[in-house]
């Protein structure tokens, strides 16, 4: 071997190795349905961070139907053999696609950056398929919040948000007597289900919640605790105003802001509405964890599909690393109203509700009371979730007895298992 061929092979190696060694470039096409307000701004953060590293970002926003339209598009793309690089996809939905063999893993990046150490174990398990990371979480939303208007509460001499459901009922009865709507609620199936799971947590605690709504244990689903949950749900039905049917969640939040109602049970995306209207936490509105002393987890994530070509594979690795970087987690979540999925990010720039959320998250991880949300597609498949939502929404909108409701719930879950 002479000098020349040595030089040639060195050059050849360098052309192969160097592009992968440099930090920049790669192409990603990202399919998502974050098209409104704070959400669009948040995804814009991701786009500009990615492009700042020299990559090419192809945006594929598909609005409509809370992601249903995007899912339909995704299905068509995968069938055609041309999936997007990364898709906004969450919870057991990730596993559904992984089982179809449609996903790439980003385990090399995850191992190198030690994601296991910084993510809550419950969330990490959702991001993995057969022990390998196939998705990266961008945030953590807490579902079990009660939002309140302090001025309205002051009218009946209450200063704090109730910490158990009996107290809540007592305050709500006082509000009713004073002619104020106690609970702002929108009668859409997912909102009914959100209230249902928050009540179930408050009545039965984290272990009951996990048995019934995550592990789908028949004994828990048909238990007396579940009957009590439905009883409380029936009480809450009496606390909503007459026009609740079909109302969007943000209009219910507006009722709190305008003083037309006292409480709303909703995840912390409601905070975005308050902040956008220029309201200050602690002063114009209160945020308090719902009863139960636990944490109901909702998280958005990007899932990596089986793409081909050096450029796109590279883009996937860079995107995964970027999503999990502390800097991005901070800027994204400031825009979105959630808290970072990484538990080690400093929260200096976040508001008091977010700080409280993070404290409770850490406590819940330690106490094993962190549970994934059923209503927000974190705990069970879309099939099971759909059946549970049917029962809950039918119960909430009818005169069904709690015993019948529990019966319907248990048999609906059994039917699809």
């Amino acid at each position, binding site marked *: 071997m002479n000098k020349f061929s040595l030089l040639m092979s060195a050059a050849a190696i360098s052309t192969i190795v160097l592009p992968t060694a440099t930090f920049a470039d790669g192409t990603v096409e990202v399919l998502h349905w974050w098209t409104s307000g704070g959400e669009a701004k948040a995804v814009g953060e991701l786009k500009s961070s990615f492009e700042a590293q020299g990559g090419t970002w192809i945006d594929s926003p598909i609005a409509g139907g809370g992601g249903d339209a995007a899912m339909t598009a995704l299905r068509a793309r995968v069938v055609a053999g041309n999936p997007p690089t990364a898709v906004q996809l969450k919870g057991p939905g990730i596993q559904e696609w992984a089982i179809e063999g449609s996903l790439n893993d980003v385990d090399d990046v995850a191992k190198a950056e030690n994601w296991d150490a910084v993510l809550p174990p419950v969330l990490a398990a959702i991001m993995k398929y057969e022990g390998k990371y196939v998705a990266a979480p961008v945030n953590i939303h807490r579902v079990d919040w009660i939002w309140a208007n302090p001025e309205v509460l002051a009218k009946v001499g209450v200063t704090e948000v109730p910490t158990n459901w009996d107290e809540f009922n007592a305050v709500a009865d006082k509000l009713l007597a004073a002619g104020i709507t106690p609970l702002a609620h929108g009668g859409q199936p997912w909102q009914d289900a959100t209230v249902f799971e928050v009540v179930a947590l408050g009545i039965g605690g984290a272990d009951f919640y996990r048995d019934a709504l995550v592990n789908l244990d028949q004994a828990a689903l048909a238990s007396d605790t579940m009957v009590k949950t439905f009883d409380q749900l029936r009480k809450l039905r009496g606390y909503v*105003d007459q026009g609740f049917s079909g109302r969007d969640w943000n209009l219910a939040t507006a009722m709190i802001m305008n003083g037309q109602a006292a409480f709303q049970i909703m995840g912390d995306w409601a905070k975005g509405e308050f902040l956008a209207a220029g309201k200050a936490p602690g002063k114009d509105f209160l945020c308090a964890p719902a009863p139960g002393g636990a944490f109901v987890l909702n998280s958005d994530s990007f899932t990596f599909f089986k793409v081909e070509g050096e450029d796109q594979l590279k883009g996937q690795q860079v995107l995964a690393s970027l999503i999990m970087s502390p800097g991005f987690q901070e800027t994204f979540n400031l825009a979105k109203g959630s808290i970072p999925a990484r538990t080690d990010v400093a929260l200096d720039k976040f508001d008091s509700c977010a700080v409280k959320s993070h404290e409770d998250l850490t406590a819940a991880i330690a106490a094993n009371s962190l549970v994934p949300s059923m209503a927000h597609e974190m705990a069970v*498949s879309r099939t099971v979730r759909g059946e549970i939502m049917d029962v809950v929404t039918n119960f909430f909108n*009818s005169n069904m007895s709690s015993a019948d409701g529990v019966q*319907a719930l248990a048999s609906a879950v059994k039917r699809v298992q």
Partner: protein
Amino acid sequence: MTNAGTPRVALERFLDRWLPQIVVSPLFAASLVFVYAFIAWTIYISFTKSGVMPNYTLVGLAQYERVWSTPRWYVALQNLFVFTGLFIAGCMIIGVLLAILLDQRIRLEGAIRTIYLYPMALSFIVTGTAWKWILNPTLGIEKLVQGWGFRDFSFDWLVDPQMAIYTVVIAGVWQSSGYVMALFLAGLRSVDDEIIRAAAIDGAGPVRTYATIILPMIRPVFLSSIIILAHLAIKSFDLVVALTGGGPGYATDMPATFMYAFAFQRSELGTAAASAVMMLMTVMAIMVPYLYSEIRGSAK
């Protein structure tokens, strides 16, 4: 000369014979693929265990058992029958009455006819959204009447699971009865004046003239109106989505919204396909006897 003419004549003959078929064939091929092939594909999918993606493992009638064991499906079917029955009856009664009243050669008939026909120009989405606000107890009629001082007035069908389906009927009838009116008005105008005069000479009053002479004469209009209204009712999807979103709960679910929910919101293509096949069979149960009688009628 004749030698040069022969191929042209042959071509003309060929075109004479085949041109209609050649012109129609792309359309025929397109509907063969996009309608009938996809119907066949849907039927096939309904026998498989397809979930989030089409999956070609056959599971027999499991998806149909699933559909028929889901309480929500029964609600959807019941709503379909309630809605179809009341929608057709309501549109026919109001449409025929309006047509008879307009038939009296009144002034400004053209303007009035246009006013009644206009709702048909709107999409069901617009109708649904407008009626959603009108019927909402905290925004619409109930609030208005209570504002007039009738504190006890209550009209909350939209949020009452037992009554919500009737609000869909109200909105549907409002939209479509003008169209039925136009069909009947055309029918009434085609009746020979001589017959009406003859009836008047024989001493028949206006009610009797219409009920026993004119309406029976325009029976074909009844048939075509009912067919048009029936297919509007069975495929009603947008009206329900805009007006109630299938709610409260799933009280106003229809087979079409049921199918949509299972296919696109719950990743259950197999179950959705089974419900779609059930819908197809419902439509065929209505259409096949009708087509059969039409074909037999024209063969005579």
